[in-house]
């Protein structure tokens, strides 16, 4: 390489590296709109009603990456990105860029994962033979931390039962009588 | 009730005609040749009948409850122990004891041991009634008894061991009815029918022995379906069926000794001199057969333990129970049989026979109930279940007695044969 070219390359690298230290931007972080303070998660409501999720409060207690795993958030030297990810994923995705969206349901489908999908997808090296569906993804994002901190551990502390759910669980109504359920026999 | 003392001349009925030459009517035959009022009076005076009445007084309502309210009114309705005393005693217990039919039939007809003739009909009757009431117990235990014929024509599952049991028991019951029917035909005077039966007796007997071998063994093979549930000392994948078949041999022979003893003592008026004169000698001969069958059984049992390498289990609590059952239920009566035969003591042989019968019932109850689910809690049957079992046993007794009082089983028919 000619001397001038080499200087240009070094300058560009330095510029780019320097831009890392610009506030609010890190390698691999997109510029997202600021998250809403409260989110209503009701995509899967059936037996349970929507979850009124206080995003602001949770964002204060955890890093973005803890829930929006390896898609966004600043790198943390104490808990680097590598330590929060299943090493099986890193085999392929260590150098992957962040995804374009933080929404869970963009990757985790409503329909549960069935291994038959892998066969149908015709991809012989597809390693995602065990990708979770949306319902599990929601629960897995919240439950481990909640179990550790021992708060909000019962089902209805995060989402209230709907009428359908009350019937499904065969709950007694307010008068103390069993609600009618499926037919006998 | 020694009727012969009261009615010296006309009873017991031994032929078609009264001493004065007129023929007995069927009704007269039924009431043993005495006026019905007298028959009733004698029946009510009999303390055995009081006991039976007491049993029925509780048992019949219980049976109604079972059929109108469902099995859970009288059993534990256990999903872990699906089979209870109805099958444990009624089927698994009574069927080996009813092996007397094919054993004596084979002895007389196949091995041509005519010396056993006096006791043959009693053994055949014992077998027939035992199997018949085993089916009755089945009809009580099975969830939908009105469907009992389903494996015959509605929906067949031929790969199942129970399929074999069902078909064989049904066929064998027919064989036994045919064999006992010759006594009935004599009594009722249908001699042509009797001659037909006599013509096919050899075929019936061979059919009987085939069917008996297979279904006595099959009852044991039923427990092959539960290799994890029956205690290893009572379970042998290879030998279960042999254990059941071999023990059925001495069970059937012992039961003949037991019934003939009861008949000799309590039905003396009904037995003829041919029977009474030979019963002691035949008892000793049967005892000999039992002893041989028992030593064979003990050896095969030991082979079963060796084959599965279950020796270590003998040193556990269950092992002690196993040795107790074999010791008191098989080994002891075998010794008593041997002594009785050697010293020609019919009474010792009889005692051994009672012992052996109880030992067989104990063994079957062990396999089916007590050592079943040995790693689980022990199931204790409800008293209602036990009482119903007793009730059906009482009915069996009544039917047995009814037939013995009338048909030429313990005596030879003096009329046309």
């Amino acid at each position, binding site marked *: 390489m000619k001397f001038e070219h080499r200087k240009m390359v070094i300058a560009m690298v330095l510029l780019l590296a320097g831009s890392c230290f610009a506030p609010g931007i890190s390698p691999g972080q997109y510029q997202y709109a600021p998250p809403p303070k409260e989110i209503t998660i009701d995509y899967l409501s059936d037996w349970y009603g929507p979850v009124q999720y206080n995003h602001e409060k949770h964002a204060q207690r955890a890093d973005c990456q803890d829930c929006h795993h390896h898609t966004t958030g600043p790198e943390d030297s104490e808990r680097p990105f590598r330590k929060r990810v299943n090493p*099986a994923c890193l085999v392929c995705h260590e150098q992957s860029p962040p995804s374009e969206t933080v929404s869970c349901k963009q990757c985790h489908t409503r329909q*549960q994962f*069935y*291994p038959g999908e892998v*066969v149908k997808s015709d991809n012989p090296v597809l390693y995602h033979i065990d990708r*979770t569906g949306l319902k*599990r993804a929601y629960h*897995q994002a919240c*439950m481990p931390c909640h179990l550790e901190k021992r708060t909000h551990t019962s*089902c209805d502390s995060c989402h209230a039962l709907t009428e359908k759910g009350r019937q*499904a*669980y*065969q709950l007694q109504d307010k008068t103390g009588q069993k609600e009618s359920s*499926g037919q*006998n*026999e | 009730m020694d009727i012969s003392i009261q009615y010296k001349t006309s009873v017991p009925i031994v032929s078609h005609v009264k001493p004065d030459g007129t023929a007995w009517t069927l009704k007269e035959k039924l009431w043993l040749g005495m006026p019905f009022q007298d028959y009733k009076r004698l029946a009510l005076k009999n303390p055995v009948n009081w006991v039976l009445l007491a049993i029925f007084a509780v048992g019949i309502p219980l049976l109604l409850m079972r*059929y109108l309210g*469902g*099995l*859970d009114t009288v059993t534990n*309705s256990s*999903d*872990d122990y699906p089979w209870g005393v109805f099958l444990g005693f009624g089927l698994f217990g009574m069927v080996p004891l009813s092996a007397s039919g094919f054993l004596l039939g084979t002895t007389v007809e*196949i*091995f*041509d041991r005519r010396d056993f003739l006096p006791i043959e009909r009693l053994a055949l009757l014992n077998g027939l009634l035992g199997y018949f009431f085993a089916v009755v117990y089945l009809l009580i235990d*099975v*969830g*939908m*008894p009105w*469907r*009992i014929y*389903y*494996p015959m024509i509605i*929906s*067949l599952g031929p790969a*199942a*061991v*129970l*399929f*074999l049991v069902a078909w064989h028991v049904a066929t064998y019951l027919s064989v036994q009815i045919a064999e006992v029917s010759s006594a009935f035909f004599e009594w009722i005077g249908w001699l042509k029918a009797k001659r037909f039966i006599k013509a096919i007796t*050899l075929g019936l007997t*061979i059919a009987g*022995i*085939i069917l008996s*071998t*297979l279904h006595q*063994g*099959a009852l044991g*093979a039923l427990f*092959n*379906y539960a*290799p*994890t*549930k029956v205690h290893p000392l009572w379970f042998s*994948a290879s030998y*279960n*069926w042999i254990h059941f078949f071999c023990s059925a041999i001495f069970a059937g022979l012992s039961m003949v000794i037991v019934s003939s003893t009861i008949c000799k003592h309590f039905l003396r008026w009904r037995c003829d001199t041919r029977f009474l004169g030979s019963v002691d000698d035949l008892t000793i001969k049967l005892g000999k057969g039992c002893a041989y069958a028992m030593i064979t059984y003990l050896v095969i049992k030991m082979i079963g333990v060796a084959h599965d390498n279950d020796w270590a289990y003998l040193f556990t609590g269950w092992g002690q129970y196993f040795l107790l059952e074999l010791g008191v239920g098989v080994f002891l009566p075998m010794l008593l049989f041997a002594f009785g035969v050697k010293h020609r003591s019919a009474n010792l042989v009889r005692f051994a026979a009672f012992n052996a019968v109880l030992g067989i019932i104990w063994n079957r109850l062990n396999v089916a109930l007590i050592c079943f689910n040995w790693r*689980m*809690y022990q199931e204790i049957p409800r008293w209602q279940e036990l009482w119903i079992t007793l009730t059906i046993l009482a009915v069996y007794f009544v039917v047995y007695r009814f037939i013995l009082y009338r048909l030429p089983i313990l005596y030879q028919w003096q009329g046309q044969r």
Partner: protein
Amino acid sequence: MINRRHFMKGGLAASTIGALGLSKKSEAADFAGYPDSMGVLVDLSRCIGCRSCEAACNSEQQLPPPEKPFNDFSVFEELRHGQKRRPDENTYTVVNSYDPPALDHPLFRKIQCNHCLEPACLTSCFVNAYTKTPEGAVIYNPDVCVGCRNCMIACPFYIPAFRYSSAFQPRIMKCVFCHDTRLREGKPPACVESCPVEALTFGRRTDLLAMGKQRIRQNPESYVNHIYGEHEAGGTAWMYLSPAPFEQAGFDTTVPNEPILNYVKDFLSFVPMVLMIWPALFAGFHLLAKRKNDNTSAATQDNEE
């Protein structure tokens, strides 16, 4: 009266018929299983014991209402005869809680029919009331059942329950893999769909085995290296992964690795032999005995003369 000539004629006829062999070669010996047979992998490390599966099953199969609501967790303490809950005449599936010493938290296990590849219940039924469908479910036909309860004796997992409480319509009650309502259309059973943490994964049995082994391979410290049901009782469609040794989660690890059917094959194969040999054998005994007796009586007659 049977004589030697008749006996030989009859015996020859019978043997010829037997030798003609009216049966063709058995296809069962070569059957390798239905290729699209479905199953469910139950991952006990994921189960949180919420009992939604029990609720979904009750609703889907229109079972009678339970004594306690499905989100009442005091049922985990219930003991009957010193045993934890098991499926009964009103319940196709139950979730039990265990405290394995290997873990610091309770372990939950869902119990239901394992839909074996070679079911013992099917093997033992003498009216052919059970069927292993191509989709993988072991279903039951109450219209031919006689109520003999031999299937309950045979099942090594203690699953079938009997409706003893009914006098006129007793029947076996057990999980049917939602065959009529879902499986036939390729849909997963109700319990699988209701699980909030995907402890239950539905798919072809072969794929589930691959998936289960992958999970163990990727998380070796999180699982015992064994899929319960891969070989037990000859293989089951519902299989289990566990973070603790299976005995500690209430599994019976002494269930043999071969189908229960194998235990009765020896006896059943003996049947045709008896049917063929016994007639000849005992006819032979009879002829021998008769000849001996005839000779004896002839000898005494000679002596008397």
